[in-house]
Each structure stands twice: as C-alpha cells, then as structure tokens.
C-alpha cells in the first residue's frame, strides 16, 4: 500500500460541493415499485433486442434484452412479475426508446448465473459481458469491451473522485462496501492481467481514503478537490502523470479506468452470480423533501423514487438526471432509472441558474477554465454561425461537455449546448462525407 498526492492540473473549476445534504446518510434499499420500465438502451452502442413479449412471466435476473452487436449490453429484469408490454416511449430526456414494462408480483424469485469455481481472464470478461455491466459512472460504455484492449495494459485506475457536486453514491459505497469493491477490483485486475491498481480519491473524502488504507496491494492517490477530476483523461494525468494524446483512448497509454459502482457490479456478477439489476443513486437538491442515498431497482419510475423521498417541494424548478454539471435536465417526470444514473436532483431557484444569456464580453474565462484547453467562445460562435468546419478545427470534438466553461461564464452563455450541437453536426458531416 502506498498513499501519495495526486498531480494538479491548472485548469478546471471549483464548484461548491453541496455534498453535505446526503454525505452522512447510509444507503437505503428502496422498496420495489409496482411497475418497472426497463429501457433497451441504457448504454453506449446498439440498443438491446427485447427477448420477451407481453404476458411472459419473468424472474428477477432473467434476460429480457439481448445485446445486439459488439458494442452493446444485455438488460435483465430487475423484478419478478409479468411483462405488461414492450413499448416505444419518449422519455423525459426526449429520447424515443424501446421499453419493457414489467408488473411486479412481489414474489422476488431470482434467476442466477451458474456459479463457476475458477475464473480465467477470458471467462471473467465473458461473465462481465453477460451480466450487462456498463461503465456506471455515467458514460455507459460496455465494460467487457473496455476490458478487452488490443494491447497489454499496465495500470488499472479506480475512479473514486466523484467530483460532481451533490452526488454521494460512490462515497457511501466506498464506506459501506469497501470489501466488495476490493474483491471486484481484484477480479478486474485479473481479467486485465495486471497488478498495478491505483484508486484515486478526492481529498475531501478522508474516511473513504482511510477505508482503503488496509489493502496492501492498492495504491491510493489523494486527489485535489477540483472539477472535473473524475474525467478519465485528467484522472490518468493526476494519478500517473501520463497524458492521453488528443484523439486517443486511455488504453493507448496503458491504462484502464473503472468506476466504483462498476467494481461492485463486477463483484456481484462474479461471486454472487447476479446480473446487473440495481443501482445506487443520490436523490438530492433543495427541491426534495428528504434527500437520500438509495439502492434502486433499474427501471423504477422517477415518481416512485421522488415519492419515497417525500416528494418534490413546491419551489422545485428543475429536475436533473445525474450530477448538476453534466447531468441532463428532465422535461417531465417520465424518467425511469437507468444503469448509468448516479443521481436525481431537484433544484430550486437560486440553487440552479435561470438567467438569460447576454453578449459574450470576451473575458476568456471559459478558455482559462477549460480542462481540455479548448477555446469555447470560438467554438460557440462558429456553431452559432453554422460553421462546423471551423468548430472542428478549434477542437470541438475534444470537448468533454464537463461544463467548466459555462459554469464561470459571466454572460451566462449556454456554451455546452452550442458545443454539443456542433459535435453532433460534425459527426453527421463525417458520416455523410464517408
């Protein structure tokens, strides 16, 4: 074991943490809802194919959506019950997705994988793929794909930064399920055939750092409290000093980054033979009556989650799926918990920002804060002028959409919105061009 201080990158921002709302609350297990809505597309890549039809009886942990292609993930039923329907629903994120709706029967019968005694690296990866595990930090990239790089890696980095304000689910898991995380890490390290494991934890979580001190084969790196420390490229730089080249992936520098929650999911899939059917999320914000850390069955409707937390206050003005910096605002309540959800926030006026944008005053704060060293003001103005060739030239595709630029913008310009629009248009252009 070794504890060392992480490197510092001179960009990024320091938003108010606001973690105290839920940081001391143990994870509660939320009772099962009467119906769950399981999206077939809770990951990056091709949507899963539904394998059940209306009227089928399913157990908890039974496959209901089969992966479709190399980059895809299985979806399992999170409750036991009857399939109520397979429907296309436009959810509160504005996405039209196929949902398998299951009515709970309360028996909680569980289907498990066959238990295997000795796992080989390949069987480990196969089990992780089978269990439908994706990067649970928010991106949702299928973990099995990430664990099968073309070259041999030398370092596994566990992301315990949790730099998003409000969110505490990783922090609570690090305190409450340290052993399980450790076991998950060991399995993943075995799958990657490497020994060097680093866990990066932000300095504002001393208890979590202490919890991991007892493991002799994990190196702890204490990270500065800085946003976006949890970004893959910056985490790699701060823990190992390696810079991921522009346009390259972490495996190009011999590193694999995994999330805390993903480690627990791997542990459960490998040792407890359970597929991924639940997630831990923080329900927070001043618009929620009782902020909580919850263990929720996947597909639970947002209304049930909010009701369990005492409902919304009358002054709540904005609902956000995810953290406040990178999460998506919801247009309604028809959101259903996904694998990648690490939080739901209900924000009130004053807490969230509703100012109208004004003229850019060219203060260059966005460029100074950008962790990717881009120049958001140029990309924005090119995007607004429909000049996507120049937007790409100024590095739009490198944008993490972390929101550091818009956070500090005194003119309150929606920089992230313009840049992500530019990214979408550039992708479209490339697709049409080739």
């Amino acid at each position, binding site marked *: 074991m070794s504890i060392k201080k992480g490197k510092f*990158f001179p960009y990024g921002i320091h938003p108010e943490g606001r973690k105290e709302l839920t940081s001391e609350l143990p994870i509660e297990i939320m009772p099962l809802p009467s119906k769950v809505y399981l999206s077939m597309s809770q990951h990056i890549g091709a949507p899963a194919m539904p394998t059940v039809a209306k009227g089928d009886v399913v157990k908890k942990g039974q496959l209901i959506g089969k992966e479709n292609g190399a980059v895809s993930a299985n979806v399992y039923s999170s409750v036991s019950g009857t399939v109520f329907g397979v429907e296309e629903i436009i959810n509160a994120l504005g996405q039209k997705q196929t949902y398998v709706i299951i009515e709970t029967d309360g028996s909680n019968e569980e289907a498990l994988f066959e238990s295997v005694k000795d796992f080989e690296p390949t069987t480990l990866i196969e089990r992780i793929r089978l269990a439908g595990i994706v990067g649970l930090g928010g991106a949702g990239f299928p973990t099995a794909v990430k664990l099968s790089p073309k070259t041999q890696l030398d370092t596994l980095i566990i992301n315990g930064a949790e730099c998003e304000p409000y969110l505490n689910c990783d922090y609570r898991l690090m305190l409450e399920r340290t052993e399980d995380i450790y076991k998950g890490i060991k399995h993943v390290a075995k799958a990657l055939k490497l020994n060097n494991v680093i866990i990066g934890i932000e300095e504002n979580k001393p208890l979590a750092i202490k919890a991991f001190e007892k493991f002799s084969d994990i190196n702890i790196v204490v990270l500065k409290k800085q946003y976006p420390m949890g970004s893959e*490229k910056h985490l790699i730089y701060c823990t190992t000093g390696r*810079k991921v*080249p522009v346009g390259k992936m972490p495996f190009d520098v011999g590193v694999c980054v995994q999330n805390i929650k993903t480690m627990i999911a791997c542990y459960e899939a490998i040792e407890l033979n359970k597929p991924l059917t639940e997630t831990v999320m923080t329900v927070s914000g001043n618009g929620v009556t009782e902020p909580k850390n919850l263990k929720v069955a996947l597909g639970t409707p947002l209304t049930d989650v909010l009701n369990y937390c005492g*409902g919304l206050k009358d002054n709540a003005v904005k609902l956000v799926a995810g953290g*406040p910096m990178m999460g998506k605002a919801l247009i309604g309540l028809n959101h259903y918990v996904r694998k990648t959800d690490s939080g739901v926030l209900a924000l009130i006026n004053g807490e969230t920002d509703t100012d109208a944008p004004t003229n850019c005053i060219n203060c260059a704060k966005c460029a100074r804060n950008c962790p990717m060293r881009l120049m958001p003001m140029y990309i924005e103005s090119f995007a607004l002028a429909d000049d996507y060739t120049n937007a790409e030239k100024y590095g739009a595709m490198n944008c993490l959409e972390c929101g550091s630029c818009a956070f500090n913008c005194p*003119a309150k310009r929606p920089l992230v919105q313009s840049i992500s629009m530019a990214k979408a248009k550039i992708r479209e252009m490339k697709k049409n061009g080739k």
Partner: protein
Amino acid sequence: MANNLLVFSASPHVKAKRTTKHIMIDVCIALLPACIMGVIYFGLNAFLILALSLLSAVISEFIYLLICGKKFKAIIKEFDFTSCVTGLLVGMSIGTNYPLYAPVFGSAFAIIVVKMLFGGTGKNLVNPAVTGRIFIFMSFQTVVGAWLLPSISAIGEPAVNTSATLLESLLKGEISNLSNLNLLLGTGVAGCIGETCKLALIIGGIYLAIRGVINIGYPIIYIAVTGLFTVALNGFEFTYFLPSILSGGLILGAIFMATDYTTTPNTTVGNIIYFVALGLVTAGLRQATGMETVSFAILLMNLFVPLIDKFVINRPFGFIKTKKTKGGV
C-alpha cells in the same frame, strides 16, 4: 409534486453567481478611490466633469436602445454598468480646465459610435473609453492649453509652475525636481482628474486583482516594459524608470483601459505578446512624439488583437504528446 413548470436547459445546472454586471460594478468600485482623490485635488469642477461624463454615457446608451425599439423596463433590467465604467474613465482622463461640454460629447461618442454601433457590450473593436479620451483630446485640446496643477502642492518641495506635464518635460530631457513620492501621490503634479493620484489607481488595481476581475500580471508587464524601454531609449539611464512609469496616464491605462476584456487577446500567451507590444509602442511613441501616448498605443494595439487571437490559440490537453517521440508508457 404540484409542479408542472419545470425549467429545461442544457448542463451545467449550477453556475457561478458572478455576471457581467457584477464585474462591471467591481470595476466602478475600483475606480472610486482615484475619482475621490481627483475631486479632492481639483475641487468641485472635477466632480462636475465626472458626473456629467458618467450621466452622458448612461443616457446615451439608453437613448440608443430606445431608438432601437427596446422597452424601457427591459433596458433597465439588462443594464450591465459597462457604460458607467466608460463614462467614469472618460471623465477621469481629462483635466478640469476642459469645458463642461467636452466630457458630455466624449462619453456620448464613446458609447454610441464606439460601442453601440458595433453591437453593444462585448462587440466593440476598440476600447470605448480610450477612444472617447482621444476624441476629446483631438477636439478640445486647443481650447484648453496647459494642464492644471492640483490644489495640494508637492510635499517638501516648492510648488512648480510648469505648463507642460511632467512627462513632457521628462521626455525633453529635463529631469524633474519632483520626488517619486510626489509622483506616486500626485501632489504638485499637473494632470488629469483621475490620473494624478497613482496610489489610488494602484489600490483600485489591487482590488480588481483580489476580486479576480483582472490578472494583475498583465498591467505589471505593460508598466515594466514601458519603463524599461524608456530607460533603454534614453541610453540606459535608470533615473528615467520610475518617473516614466509614475507620470502620465500609464497606470490608469494599464490597469483599467488595456485590461478591458473585449479588447484583449483570449490566451495567456496572446496576452503576454499584447502587453509587451503595448509597452514597446507606448514608450516608443512617447519618445518619438514627446507627449503622452498611452491611449494611442492602446487604440493601436486593440486593432491587432484579432490578429493575435487568430494566430495564438490554446493547444488541447494532450496535444504535445502527439509530436513528442519519447513515449510516456
């Protein structure tokens, strides 16, 4: 749950509280010490000039927006205090012997022609205050003649009756008998309302740096380069250093005019190029013309900013790696 009016917007959902308005109010606060010292030194007339130029700037912005068809309430709501900064700076950069209509015309010109016609806050090509100052200088200098001395005379030295500003005599090779302390405090120094007391300006600059509005390094680069280049042009006579930076409008220009967000480059490297060039141009022009050229230098360099911004851009995180041959792995 009785909430069916959800706000929908792109991330991030939390933002820093500071807006353009807050920044501009901070700049106004930073200008106050110098304004107060100006009124103390030059009396009621100084106050009148400052008030008139401030009012003229604000009112011309309002009139312009009203003509453009904006509702009065909306103008009040969107008022961001940039015109207050411009108005104060224009007033501060002229002397009390100017006729009272000079600041009125100067501010109106700065706001309407330099700022609003280009699209308002953030769209101007050159600094409005600097241009307003030059406008007044060009239009009314013949009416005025010499600079006036402040009411407080130099500490520990006999009053000087010079018609030329100290800087002008300095450039003609007459080393003044005024001590650097007097130059810093502005006692016994002829000059403009807001430029005379350098100490007040420096206090304002420190306030802005503490509040994070400006990077104090850039004005320091500008001032230091100007001083050193003046020294170099005068045969490395280091007695020129402090008088050259403590006289004229250099400190006001460096802290409040050259650092204007809109008319400075967007990168650190670009800013360093800009401020070094500014220092060289200022000192060079001063030497060549024998008069105060800070505002002309800023105006000139403002026009180079788009060019600097075109060629100096940040490299993305991880960019250097692709060129290097040694691998990090």
